[in-house]
């Protein structure tokens, strides 16, 4: 393929150019190193064309009548308090100093720290009846991010890796990874292999590491480096016929794709108006949400799905929780509210599910250090977009916030709901490298029907 492309380029330029020898044009192209079976993709020319196609402003492809949907996971690391966010208990001693405020939706009240989000409540569905029995950070994070409890016989993939595998593989030309994690690390793809690991953006305010050519290296030199590399790869492939060579080659091509100006532009939030950056919040979580919107926008334009995880840390508030919330919550409020509004204004809200959660909730009881400890028996999560019914609440906890008293929802239920909205078959069985089966969602889980519009 690129053999042809290179030759064509040679033809085009040979009329006008009789200057110094362009090494690649003459030697490599003429000899046609690139042959069937080994796409010869390490070619900037081929790459640019793919990119232009992939990121072109074309309407999303409709397959089977369903537009591909994306996910933005707002991950509250450390375990966010439910009583001070989505399930306030004013008047009860467990409620602490948190007041309840009205929202845009009559009858639905949330914690007073979230006034901007309250204005977006018509888009949000709250689940106040989440329940689990994992209250250790590591185990609970694994449970919420994979839908399975830790188990020595299998390393389960993160839900983002499942999305990357099940939906992302339908769009192999898409130049960005289908699973991106912003503000720090996350769980891996388990037995799906590193190809479905999250691409981690450490800091949304800085350019991603190593996306640009090293200083002082011009395009011609880089192209010639790649041409030589291509030659070596071709040779090894011929001698060994080893799929590992091909796999490595594919990864290099994906990395090259990411170096394109188009991708760098998508990743660059300085392209956004300053007012909008301010509205999201001048902090890593706000900027992460803004980057998430840009990434979803790129995926929607290309007619594919993406899974974006935005981390917010510091929710493990064992001490002085009300003081800690004073600084933490305004960040969440601005970023989440602006994200929902921005997605709605761009008519993207139906194409993306925003899911707010952490690994568990926090004790209703306020401890001696004015803090709340780990609590998994009852906690809340919030969902918006993706075509779900906004503005309503599922389940309820007791007056003291410690027990689920209505419509228990388990973690597998939640994951089943998410996959159902995305059009992923929850009953599909995949196999790890040892041939052990894994159902995409634990059979105990069932989608929450009342949530699906």
């Amino acid at each position, binding site marked *: 393929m690129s053999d042809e492309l290179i030759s064509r380029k040679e033809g085009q330029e040979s009329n006008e150019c009789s200057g110094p020898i362009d090494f690649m044009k003459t030697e490599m192209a003429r000899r046609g190193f690139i042959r069937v079976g080994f796409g010869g993709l390490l070619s900037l020319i081929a790459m640019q064309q793919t990119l232009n196609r992939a990121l072109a402003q074309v309407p999303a492809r409709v397959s089977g009548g369903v537009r591909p949907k994306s996910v933005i996971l707002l991950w509250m690391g450390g375990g966010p308090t439910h009583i001070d966010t989505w399930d306030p208990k004013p008047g009860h001693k467990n409620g602490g100093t948190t007041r309840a405020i009205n929202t845009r939706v009559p009858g639905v009240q949330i914690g007073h720290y979230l006034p901007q989000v309250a204005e977006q409540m018509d888009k949000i569905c709250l689940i106040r009846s989440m329940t689990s029995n994992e209250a250790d950070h590591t185990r609970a994070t694994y449970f919420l991010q994979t839908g399975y409890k830790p188990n*020595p016989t299998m390393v389960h993939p993160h839900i983002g890796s499942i999305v990357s595998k099940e939906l992302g593989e339908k769009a192999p030309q898409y130049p960005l*990874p289908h699973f991106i994690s912003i503000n720090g690390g996350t769980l891996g793809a388990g037995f799906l292999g*590193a190809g479905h690991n999250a691409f981690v953006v450490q800091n949304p305010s800085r350019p991603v590491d190593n996306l640009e050519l090293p200083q002082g290296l011009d395009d011609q030199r880089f192209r010639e480096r790649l041409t030589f590399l291509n030659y070596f790869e071709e040779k*090894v492939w011929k001698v060994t*016929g080893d799929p*590992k060579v091909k796999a490595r080659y594919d*990864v*290099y091509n994906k990395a090259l794709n990411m170096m394109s100006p188009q991708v760098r532009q998508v990743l660059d939030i300085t392209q956004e108006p300053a007012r909008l950056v301010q509205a999201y919040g001048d902090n890593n979580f706000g900027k992460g949400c803004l980057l998430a919107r840009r990434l979803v926008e790129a995926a929607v334009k290309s007619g594919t799905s993406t899974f974006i995880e935005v981390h917010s840390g510091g929710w493990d508030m064992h001490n002085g929780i009300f003081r800690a919330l004073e600084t933490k919550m305004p960040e969440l409020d601005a970023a989440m509210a602006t994200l929902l509004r921005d997605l709605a204004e761009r008519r993207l809200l139906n194409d993306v599910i925003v899911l707010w959660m952490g690994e568990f909730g926090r004790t209703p009881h306020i401890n001696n250090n004015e803090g709340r400890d780990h609590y998994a028996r009852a906690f809340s999560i919030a969902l918006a977009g993706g075509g779900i019914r906004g503005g309503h609440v599922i389940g309820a906890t007791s007056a003291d916030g410690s027990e689920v008293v209505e419509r228990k929802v388990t973690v597998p239920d939640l994951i089943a709901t998410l996959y159902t909205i995305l059009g992923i078959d929850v009953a599909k069985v995949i196999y790890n490298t040892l041939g052990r089966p894994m159902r995409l969602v634990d059979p105990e889980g069932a989608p929450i029907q009342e949530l699906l519009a």
Partner: protein
Amino acid sequence: MIKRLTLLILCTCLPALAAFGQGDYMRAAQTVDEYIAKKLAESKIIPAPPSSDAEFIRRVYLDIVGVIPSAEEVSAFLRSGAANKRERLILTLLSDKQPYRDMYQEHWATVWEQWLIGRGDRRDSGVNRATIKSWLRDVVFAKNMPYDEMVRQILTAQGTTEESGPVNFFAKWGPNQADIAAAASRVFLGVRTSCARCHDHKFEKWKQEDFWSYAAFFSRTQGRVVRPRDDFNRPFFAVAEQPAQGELVATVDDGPKKGVKVTATTHLNGDVIQLTGTFQAREELARWMTAPGNPWFAQNVVNKMWDYFLGRGFVNPVDDFRDGNPPSHPEALKFLAEDFAANGYNLKYLIAVITNTKTYQRSSGLAKEPYTVRPGETLESIAQKHRISVETLRALNGSAKPMAGSQIFVPVQPEKAESVFARAQLRPLSPEQLFYSILQAVGADDVRQARSRQALEQMKANYLRRFITLFDNDEQTEQTDFEATIPQALMMMNGDLINSRLSASPILAQLLNARMMEAQRVNLIFLQTLSRPPTNEEVTLFGRLLEGRLQQARLKAANVPPPANGGQPNQQQLLQAQLKILTDAQRQAYEDILWSLVNSSEFMFIH
């Protein structure tokens, strides 16, 4: 002892042989090869040809001392006409000769640190990687400690992770007795017992009671994280053991039988446990585990080592020995294990056996098998059917034209070939091997010198962060072994480690300053990176690249603008400016080829 001394005197011709005692590693290697060959014959597979000397030296350096050889080492080896030069090279790498001794210790300490305690630690776990690393490097591998002794020290370790390396195993996997018991059986016996913690094993023979009988040996040991008052943020882990009296009892801590007390009566292999008087429980466990009668102990480690060198164990995954998962080559496994035990659990001896096998020394080329041509089939259609090029097929068959009914050879699928060890697998360099090899390739002299270890360790730590994403998840036994990722590829292409090292490469500076032909320079660069001389085609291709760059540079040099002050151009200054343009162009061309070489599969895989 006397025998050993005699041997030392008799065998000065081969360095380091004495380190192996009296074992005949060559004969052992041959025996293993015979078992492998038997199975190959049964499956009618003709293995890939032997590796070339160049392939061999690169592979054996990476595997034994963890870094690629230098250009001089490669040249010397290729030039040598000695019939037993491969054997001699293996012995040299295993000998006490510097720098190999340091490199060997560093490399195997890294490998075993990961085998013992994985790569990542939970925050505040009290694990101290410095002490376990230095124990492995400066004690275990410096003294070539017998493997059974090493395991005994780990199993019975007491004290703190600040002071004792082997305590870290307990710190990592304990203190819960069931957790540490499951880890010990997985790492030292290759047996996964953790399912039996909560219930009788579904398919295998272990009952829940068997597991708790075994776990009871850890019931007298306490371990906990200690936070020093004056240094609260640097916790360590402390382990202490109380002597046991008469019997050992464990309490089931999970599953339906939670709370039931189990008295230790039989070992996992069925041996009856006989304990009387006062004893140290973990010492008793170590005695049983490392006893010659315990078949798993030696088999587990030789299987692990075989997997390390060949890319695949006889039992796969390596920590899953059980009746339902039999070894691919039971005789070879049994022989290697018994031979290893008979030779004093000497790890250097085991390495000498494995690396001297023909099986280890095969090339990564194609293994082949016979194929009967069907009517109407052509070379093209057969090639297509096997997803290979016609050229490849021709290479296996010479000029023979396929006729219906005649027999030709087709390549065996890589995975199938590797399952019978018919070719050398492509194994990705570990992050550490890659790091050291990049430095070696650009000629950085800090790779082999212990004195620069501090600075080097810091640089390595920074760089490893890119390669290894640490998850709190150590039992990643199921991950496919090939794990190239986009961030790694980006780092290899554009990262500072590569590019700053390229532009400051001592080897390039040396080559460009020396009086030599371009072809000689190219030759040395290939030897330095891929451990082989370039092909004629590669020399020609590079020559053209260089010529193109120089032509561009000459044009540029011809147009160097006169000095800005409008005065008389200074001829000498002008010449210098022109010369710089030319030498820069030349240097850049070499940097570029070096870049392509270190980014290539041939560099990034052990082959």
